[in-house]
């Protein structure tokens, strides 16, 4: 598929000397929803800010919609809409004024019909004459989205769009993102909420400590790295795993009323048939079977954990991630 963003060898060292990005290579396909996952401080916002022209890169090249972001910055930037992580807007402006301003800044002639469409889509039309400071936090975030869409961008960056947003609004936002994708807009979102990536994304990239450690189709990722667990309910409880079953790595669960078998779902030889036979031979009567797949979060925490193992912060970062998953 055609690529809409191509990042090559991107490095960023801040004036403080901190290297926030280490040689990032990344390609975003036109029309996809790409989720960039990573713990706090991983470099997600830095990466987005460079692509959008808010932060200068130290080294490397970024092409957006066929244009270099430095040499052809006008054309590159016209293609981009950005919803920043922080809630910032001119508090004294009306919704309509600030959205019109955005469209103008991006060099587009005023278009009342388009602005009305965007505001209606985000349920802001009734609030169009309200000052932004009088809106709720969720609405302010929607105003930022409306600003980003005001100039009809090809690529939309959503930097943690659903942080501090209630469940209902989050659903609304997801639906809106899907509708945008149907209109051909490419969407890159960063998130701590793994369920969000799982629910929305076509592809997922994981960034940690300034490095992209993985980019994968969501489906591939989940099946490739995903393990399945088979929970076997037993008629009679066990106090310990019989020695004849030692090779299967079973674990007792539910106070001995069940055993859990973990296996790789992708593997040709899952060992399920052998296990069931062995259970039978051991004289254990099976009451029920239930299998479950590990979530993206399990995969992700595993990855980041793996990556950070020598570091002391690993646990904290992984914990922060799962903590954000309330």
């Amino acid at each position: 598929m055609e690529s809409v963003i191509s990042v090559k060898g991107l490095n960023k060292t801040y004036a403080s000397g901190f290297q926030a990005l280490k040689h990032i290579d990344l390609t975003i396909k036109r029309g996809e929803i790409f989720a960039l996952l990573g713990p706090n401080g991983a470099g997600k916002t830095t990466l987005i800010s460079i692509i959008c022209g808010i932060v200068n890169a130290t080294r490397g090249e970024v092409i957006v919609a066929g244009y270099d972001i430095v040499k052809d910055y006008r054309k590159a930037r016209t293609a981009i809409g950005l919803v920043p992580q922080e809630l910032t807007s001119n508090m004294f402006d009306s919704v309509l004024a600030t959205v019109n301003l955005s469209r103008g800044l991006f060099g587009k002639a005023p278009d009342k019909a388009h602005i009305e469409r965007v505001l209606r889509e985000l349920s802001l039309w009734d609030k169009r004459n309200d000052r932004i400071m009088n809106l709720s936090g969720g609405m302010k975030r929607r105003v930022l989205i409306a600003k980003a869409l005001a100039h009809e961008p090809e690529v939309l960056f959503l930097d943690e769009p659903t942080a501090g947003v209630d469940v209902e609004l989050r659903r609304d936002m997801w639906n809106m993102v899907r509708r945008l994708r149907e209109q051909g807009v490419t969407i890159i979102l960063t998130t701590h909420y793994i369920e969000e990536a799982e629910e929305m994304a076509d592809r997922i990239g994981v960034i940690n400590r300034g490095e992209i450690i993985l980019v994968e189709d969501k489906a591939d990722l989940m099946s490739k790295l995903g393990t399945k667990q088979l929970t076997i309910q037993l008629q009679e409880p066990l106090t310990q795993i019989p020695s004849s079953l030692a090779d299967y790595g079973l674990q007792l669960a539910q106070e001995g009323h069940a055993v859990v078998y973990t296996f790789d779902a992708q593997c040709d030889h899952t060992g399920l048939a052998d296990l069931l036979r062995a259970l039978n031979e051991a004289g254990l009567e099976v009451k029920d079977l239930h299998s479950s797949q590990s979530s993206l979060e399990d995969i992700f925490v595993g990855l980041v954990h793996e990556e950070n193992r020598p570091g002391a912060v690993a646990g904290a970062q992984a914990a922060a991630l799962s903590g954000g998953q309330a």
Partner: protein
Amino acid sequence: MNGYGIRALYLSELSRMWRTLFQSIASPVISTSLYFIVFGAAIGSRMQEIDGVSYGAFIIPGLIMLMLLNESISNASFGIYMPKFTGTIYEVLSAPLSPVEIVVGYVGAAATKSVLLGILILLTARLFVDYEILHPIWMFGFLVLTAITFSLFGFIIGVWADGFEKLQIVPMMIVTPLAFLGGSFYSINMLPPMWQTITLFNPVVYLISGFRWSFYGVADVHIGVSLGMTLVFLTICLAIVWIIFRTGYKLKP
């Protein structure tokens, strides 16, 4: 060129000032009126004419310059400092605007407001004293040029400042003293010779002198020198702004 972009930025900056129209107009008009009452009417009536101009009329150009410098600097510095402070600057930085266009938007709006205020003060002065303007075109030219130059200067301060204190300190500690000592209320010929020489290092002297010349045809220094010095200061400000954008200094990390 991103014409819509410049327009949007310029108009949104002007509308921000429009919102605070009352303060924007009231404070300079009131303080100018006070100056006229104190210096023009009360003290001025006991002062002799300077270069054949009544004292009340003599101080008009200086007063307007004083206001123009303060207003230009504070408007422009605030205009760029606030978005930096609140974070809304992200949008301008991510927009397809060149540095020149960004400066035209911000500085243009600040300068426009200063010029309008200058004219307003001129009209207010009319209530207190009679004056004539010998060279109205030059007068307007100086007004615009000074407004642009000091709005640029304010823009630089706004970019440089990382706190409200710094935002205030340059206008208060440097510009106001220079403006007062630059001949707003006296002709530098009235100073002892040594101070006359020292005063020539004060750039504001040239602005006020040139501006006063456009009113009354009398000046402390030659009009050409005034114009030249104003342009030099403008060029310095432009160069600093260019460096700011070239290096991203305090605008882009």
